């Protein structure tokens, strides 16, 4: 290994800046800590840009690879690399870090340094998840990222934060631990290797594949989250501070779906085909049932949380119909949801900072006092509902298109989201933003300041950019998705 690779920098620079912030001490230095946090986030994002510009879209092979021995005795490697599936997430993650640093700029007044450090360290760890090509290294990052998130929810969250934080941690830990055992099993099956790419080629009996798939299902379905293992998410989302909700929605949910693409599908292709019907059913339940659940929420954050689950149902649906359209649709949907959900949570955060309530009933007529904000919120609400021209449309449309080819009635059910999504989002929007000014607290609301304006503008650009011209994004994915589908079409059952 010569020099330090880009991916290593993308992982370790935010972590080191985070540690640096912790060293600077307590709240007496909070101004400097904020600046340092922003600096770290911006540098972290800048580092990842060459991953995009220097990316070779013509190959499915891993790029920007780095390989070193880490724990030779256990054959654990420090092996990094990205393909068209993982690379966009690293960018998304580093971009989101800037947003969450800005989101906590004024609101977080206590333990500022720890807040900034937690988010930066978290960002580095998540980059590690997406860049790992060694199964155990993946696991280390996958688990380690729970720690900062646990602290973020528990330290800066809402009234019920302790319950939410512990539930979040234990729920996700259960799945991870089962995965750990299956990683060890794969280690012995592959003749002593933790390399994910080697595992992709290991022949496995059907029974083993199904057990592995179930273990991966527990690990990743909890993260996605798929119905019925989604119950931690509304709690965690609602209780987390705005920045925490943004990271949860925009990034950590994607880790789950990414895990399916990187582990479950290529390692256990036969089991994946065998169980695809079940997965599709769970996805459709998420889309339809959770969509209905979202409709009746009185709490805005909860509503967005449920809408996230419904949107992620689309992603898993797209993945498990095993077609290029579906899979790319799922991937685009994930990136888009990263922007849209982040934006929605930030919008709720903006209102919460002023009124300190998340209840829809406490608002009304916000457009009168915050016209600029109302315009942004409108855009994001539309994107959340999947309006053409916004990023929300592209992914959903591709997935539905792919599903129609597979089975009309699945597509019919999936398409109901266009109605439910519009219903719950726009109904909430109407009750919150339009109408007469609801009460004196809304009356007193100030329109967004410069910092909030910048954050929302950044997101608006992303949402519209992907919505109007998604080609660069899908181009990056083509080769890798095709490669995955080819892998999926070959049985791995031992001859």
């Amino acid at each position: 290994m010569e020099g330090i690779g880009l991916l290593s920098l993308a992982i370790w620079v935010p972590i080191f800046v985070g540690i640096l912030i912790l060293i600077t001490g307590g709240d007496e230095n909070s101004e400097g800590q904020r600046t340092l946090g922003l600096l770290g986030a911006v540098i972290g994002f800048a580092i990842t840009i060459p991953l995009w510009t220097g990316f070779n879209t013509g190959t499915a092979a891993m790029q920007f690879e780095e390989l070193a021995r880490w724990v030779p005795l256990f054959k654990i490697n420090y092996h990094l690399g990205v393909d068209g599936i993982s690379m966009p997430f690293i960018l998304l993650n580093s971009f989101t870090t800037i947003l969450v640093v800005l989101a906590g700029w004024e609101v977080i007044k206590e333990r500022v340094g720890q807040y900034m450090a937690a988010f930066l360290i978290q960002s580095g760890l998540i980059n590690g998840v997406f860049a790992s090509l060694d199964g155990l290294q993946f696991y280390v990052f996958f688990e380690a990222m729970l720690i900062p998130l646990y602290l973020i929810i528990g330290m800066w969250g809402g009234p019920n934060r302790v319950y939410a934080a512990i539930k979040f941690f234990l729920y996700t830990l259960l799945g991870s631990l089962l995965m750990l055992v299956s990683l060890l099993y794969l280690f012995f099956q592959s003749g002593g290797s933790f390399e994910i790419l080697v595992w992709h080629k290991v022949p496995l009996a059907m029974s083993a594949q199904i057990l592995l798939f179930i273990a991966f299902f527990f690990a990743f379905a909890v993260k996605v989250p798929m119905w019925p293992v989604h119950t931690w998410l509304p709690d965690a989302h609602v209780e987390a501070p705005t920045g925490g909700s943004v990271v949860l929605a925009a990034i950590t949910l994607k880790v789950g779906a990414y895990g399916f693409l990187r582990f479950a599908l290529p390692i256990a292709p036969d089991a994946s085909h065998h169980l695809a019907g079940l997965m599709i059913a769970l996805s459709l339940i998420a889309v339809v049932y959770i969509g209905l659940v979202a409709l009746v929420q009185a709490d805005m954050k909860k509503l967005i949380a449920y809408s996230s689950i419904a949107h992620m149902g689309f992603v898993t649906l797209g993945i498990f119909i095993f077609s290029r359209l579906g899979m790319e649709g799922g991937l685009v949907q994930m990136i888009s949801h990263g922007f849209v959900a982040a934006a929605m949570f930030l919008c709720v955060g903006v209102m919460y900072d002023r009124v300190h309530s998340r209840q829809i009933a406490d608002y009304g007529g916000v457009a009168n006092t915050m016209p600029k904000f109302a315009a942004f919120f409108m855009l994001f609400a539309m994107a959340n509902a999947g309006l053409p021209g916004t990023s929300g449309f592209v992914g959903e449309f591709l997935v539905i298109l792919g599903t129609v080819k597979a089975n009309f009635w699945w597509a019919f059910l999936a398409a109901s989201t266009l109605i439910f999504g519009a219903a719950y989002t726009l109904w909430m929007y109407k009750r919150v933003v339009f109408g007469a000014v609801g009460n004196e607290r809304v009356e007193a609301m100030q329109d967004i300041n410069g910092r909030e304006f910048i954050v929302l503008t950044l997101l608006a650009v992303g949402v519209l950019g992907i919505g109007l011209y998604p080609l660069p994004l899908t181009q990056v994915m083509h080769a890798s998705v095709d490669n995955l589908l080819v892998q999926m079409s070959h049985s791995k059952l031992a001859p």
Partner: protein
Amino acid sequence: MIMHAMTLTLPDLVPALPEIFVLFMTCAILLLGVTARQTAWSYALTLLTLVGAAAITAFDSSGSPQYAFSGQFVDDPMADVLKLMTYLSGIAVVIYSRAYLIERKLFRSEFFVLLLFATLGMMVMISANHFLVLYIGLELLSLSLYALVALDRENKLATEAAMKYFVLGALASGLLLYGMSILYGLTGTLELNKLAAMVYMGVRSPTLLSFGLVFLVAGLGFKMGVAPFHMWVPDIYQGAPSPVTLFIGSAPKLAAFAFTMRILVDGLQPAVGDWQGMLAVMAVLSMAIGNLAAIMQTNIKRMLAYSTISHMGFLLLGILSGTFAGYSVSMFYAIVYVLMSLGTFGLVVYLSQNGLEAENLDDFKGLNSRHPWLAALMGMLMFSMAGIPPFVGFYAKLSVLQALVGSGWLWLALVAVLFSLIGAFYYLRVVKILYFDSPNAGVLPLSVHADSRALLSLNGLAVLLLGIAPQGLISLCVYAMQMSMQ
């Protein structure tokens, strides 16, 4: 090996040099304690003794087992590594405890003498190659510990704990002796190597062998503190003065590991099929009882006692896999556990200032807003105990699981994982108390004790750094085991 019938030559003593040195120094400190007014001398000399013993052990070590006293005593690389770790924990205990003992007027020479005698006992246990030597080492350790628990004789709880410890400990010793005598009757030898050879060739009555084994394993279970022989652990951990709990929770675990290895692996490896099942039952029970009971505790020392039980159960998993890899990772696990336990109890001792015993979980409330660094250390230790990467506790668990899966105990690995999940809950609760709660009103600020604070920091950071780069420690364990078992 040629036996010189009961003639001791000087080279024959060389493998036991560290023990001889510690014995000599301990007696010297004992005498000094009677005459000198200043306990500080005992303190300094104790540290010196431990450092000196470490130097001798390191200098004395060789790549293969060295026998002494006609084969009754063995000095192999496994013993060297474990002894070095024992000295290290001794040093940590001495430094962590100083301020606590001074504040409570317990800073007396006896503490150090007893601690050194216990250390000597552990060294003998670690190096024993003979049932009687093992037993002598064990009793030296146990008797010193009984006295240490009762060190604060005004304290009713501690006295009661010492009584319990003594009665149950004596019972366990009895069980061990009974098992040993049955095996002696069966094979006619007390020497572990010979015993292994005899068992390997086949004994007259396999039933009697199993019968004796049951008593041995039960005795071992008592001494290790694994279920269903764990009842003494929570009471003793809670009742003993915190520095003594710190000590009981650290190095004796290494000795218990060595003890188990010597008896079951060195002496009874051919009967592996017999003891594997027993250990499996004990391991599962320990993980279940330890992890479940810890959830309900409000006293941190008691909670950590139950956590110890579950960790010892996990350690047994490596041994029961019956493979070389399993033994090495169990050793790794024992060392890692001792490191974590030292840090955690060290913090409990450190926070017990201004007349407050930081025993209840509530005493840790909001530590992050009072002392962020100490809270961070405690947090890291808790995550490490829970087995969350990137802390070293994760690799300890991982390596044991790997050995289990590799030797075909997949179901046991799944059980272990399940109980780890349950265990994660109470470690997380400590983190919650440290970080999410507000401090109790009216807590006095802590005074800084630079020496123990620095060592605690090192201790905590070691848990993180060894987690990021675990290769060195693991390969040391594998190497030591390899060289000792040839």
